[in-house]
C-alpha cells in the first residue's frame, strides 16, 4: 500500500528517530510512505481566529501538494501536523467562501483545492488498514514485562470532531501497545495537556505540568511513556532536566515515540529506532528487559 506522507519540520531535525523508526516499521508492515515533494511547514498551531486566513495557507498548500500527486490521502506522524492539517481541511470543507479566498491567495498554484484530501495519522492506518491483530502476528520481539504509559496529549483527541479517538476515553495507543506485547499502564493524566508552546516562554509551567503527568504514570508503575508528538516529547522528555532541578526526588522516565517501540518489536535494526536521540536514555531499561541486542 502506497500513501502520501507529510513529515513536518521536526521529524527532519529533532525527531529524526520518530521518522526513521516509522518509515522502517511501515515498510515492514507493507506500507510505503511516499514523502510529498515540496511540502512546507504544516502551519504549526491551528489559528483559532476566524478571519485569520493567512495562517490557513500553509496547511491547505500542503493538501494541494497531495492532490498534485493524484493521491486522495495524506498520512502524518506528528500530532501537531495531523491536527493543523486536519483542522484546516475541516474549515475549508465547511466554508466555501474561505476555500475560495485561500485558492485565490494561492493563484500561482496550478491545482485548486476542493476539500478532497483525507488527513490521517499513522495510528489510524495501523488500526484500520493493517489492523492490530496483523501487527501482533508480525511482532518478533514482544515487549512483555515492559510497563508503558500511553500519552495522548491534546492534539490527537481534541476537539472531538478532529480527534482520531474518543476525546475522553481513548484506547488507540493502548490497543496498539498491547498488540506489540507491552503491558499498558492506566493513569489519569494521559489526555492532559503538556503545556505545549509555553515551553518557549514559561518553562516553570511546563515543568509543573510535565512533573504531574510523569509522576502520575510512574506512581501507577510505568517504566516508560509512549507518545506521538515531538512537542509533547520535548516537554515530557527533554524538560526532565528542569524537572529534576525543581523536584529533587524525581527519578526520571524514558519517553518513546510509538514507532520506536513498533520498530523494536518488529525486530528491525536498532539503528532505525534512534534511541541515542532520546533525552532520557532508554537503552538501559530496554537492555534490562532483554529487548535490545537480540537481532
Amino acid at each position, binding site marked *: 500500500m502506497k500513501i502520501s506522507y507529510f513529515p513536518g519540520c521536526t521529524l*527532519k531535525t529533532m525527531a529524526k528517530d520518530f521518522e526513521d523508526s516509522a518509515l522502517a516499521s511501515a515498510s515492514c508492515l507493507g506500507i510505503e510512505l511516499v514523502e510529498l515533494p515540496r*511540502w*512546507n511547514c504544516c502551519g504549526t498551531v491551528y489559528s483559532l481566529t476566524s478571519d485569520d486566513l493567512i495562517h490557513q495557507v500553509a496547511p491547505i498548500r500542503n493538501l494541494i501538494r497531495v492532490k498534485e500527486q493524484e493521491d486522495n490521502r495524506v498520512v502524518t506522524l506528528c500530532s501537531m501536523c495531523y491536527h493543523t492539517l486536519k483542522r484546516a481541511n475541516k474549515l475549508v470543507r465547511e466554508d466555501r467562501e474561505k476555500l475560495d479566498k485561500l485558492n485565490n491567495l494561492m493563484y500561482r498554484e496550478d491545482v485548486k483545492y476542493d476539500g478532497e484530501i483525507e488527513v490521517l495519522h499513522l495510528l489510524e492506518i495501523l488500526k484500520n488498514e493493517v489492523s492490530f491483530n496483523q501487527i501482533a502476528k508480525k511482532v518478533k520481539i514482544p515487549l512483555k514485562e515492559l510497563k508503558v504509559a500511553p500519552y495522548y496529549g491534546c492534539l490527537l483527541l481534541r476537539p472531538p470532531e478532529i480527534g482520531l479517538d474518543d476525546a475522553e476515553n481513548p484506547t488507540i495507543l493502548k490497543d496498539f501497545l498491547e498488540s506489540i506485547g507491552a503491558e499498558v499502564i492506566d493513569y489519569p493524566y494521559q489526555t492532559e495537556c503538556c503545556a505545549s508552546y509555553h515551553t518557549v516562554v514559561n518553562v516553570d509551567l511546563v515543568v509543573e505540568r510535565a512533573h504531574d503527568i510523569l509522576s502520575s504514570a510512574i506512581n501507577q508503575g510505568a517504566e516508560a511513556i509512549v507518545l506521538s508528538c515531538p512537542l509533547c516529547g520535548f516537554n515530557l522528555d527533554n524538560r526532565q532536566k528542569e524537572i529534576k532541578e525543581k523536584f529533587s526526588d524525581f527519578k526520571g522516565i524514558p519517553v518513546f515515540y510509538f514507532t520506536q517501540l513498533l520498530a523494536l518489536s518488529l525486530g528491525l535494526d536498532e539503528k532505525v529506532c534512534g534511541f541515542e536521540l532520546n533525552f532520557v536514555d532508554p537503552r538501559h531499561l530496554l537492555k534490562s528487559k532483554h529487548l535490545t541486542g537480540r537481532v
Partner: protein
Amino acid sequence: MKKEKSIMEKIAEANKTVTKGVDEKEVKHWVTIYIMGKPCRVPAALTIMQAMEYAGYKFIRSCGCRAGFCGACSTVYREKGEYKLQTAMACQTRVEDGMYLVQIPFAPAEKAIYDINEEEYDISVFFKYYPEVARCVSCNTCTKSCPQDLEVMDYVQAAIKGDFAQVAEGSFECIQCGLCAMRCPADIVQYHLAQLARRMYGRYGSLEEKNVKKRVEEIKKGKYDKEFDRVMSLGGTEFKNLYTEQQRTREVY
C-alpha cells in the same frame, strides 16, 4: 559586406547609457511612465533603467552591471490599470505606457557576521542568525517577487527542515537584490539566509571538488608562475589590449 557584430559589441551597445545620443526623430513609439509620480515621455524601446536616464536621472545607486547579473537595480512598479505591485530588475524590464515606478536602492537588513569554521552544520545555525525564518506562513510572496524566478518559499521551507543542500541549490541563482525581503510579510531576509546556507553547504555539505584541489596544488607548485610574471610585467596599454582581446575571444556570459 557588413561585418557581423560580436556578442560583446552587442551587449555594450545595448547597455550604453542613453542620456545622450538618442535621436528623437528616429523614435517611432513613445510611452509615458510615471517616475516617482512624475510623468515622463520616453522612447518605448527602452528598459526602465535607460528610460530613467533618458528622463534625466543619473544613477549613483540602483545601478550596476546593466546585464541582469548584479541585483543592484531593483524596481517596484504598477502597470496601468493593474492593482498588483510588481518587482523587477530595471535593466531587464522594458517600460510600458502608464507604468508607475520607483527604484529601491537598498534592502535594509542586518547581515550576520560569523565564521563558518566555528559554526555547527546544523539547523540551529539558521535560528541563531536569522530566527525570523520560523515566522514563514508559506504565503509565497517571496517567490512572486523574485526577478530570477526562483522558488524562494521552497528554499525558506527547506531551511526550516534543516536541508542545507536544497537551500543552496534552490538559491544558487540568487542575485541578492533583496526584493523578497522587502515584500515578505513575516520580515524574513531570505537572501541573507540563503547565503548563510550556501556557505555552510560549501564548507561542510557538498562534495570536495577534485579539480579545484588539483588546480590549487598546481598553482602552489608554480605551474602558472611564468604566465603570472608575464602578465604582471605588462604596461598599461598592453594589459588593456590583452584584456580586451580576451573579452572579445571568450564569451564570458
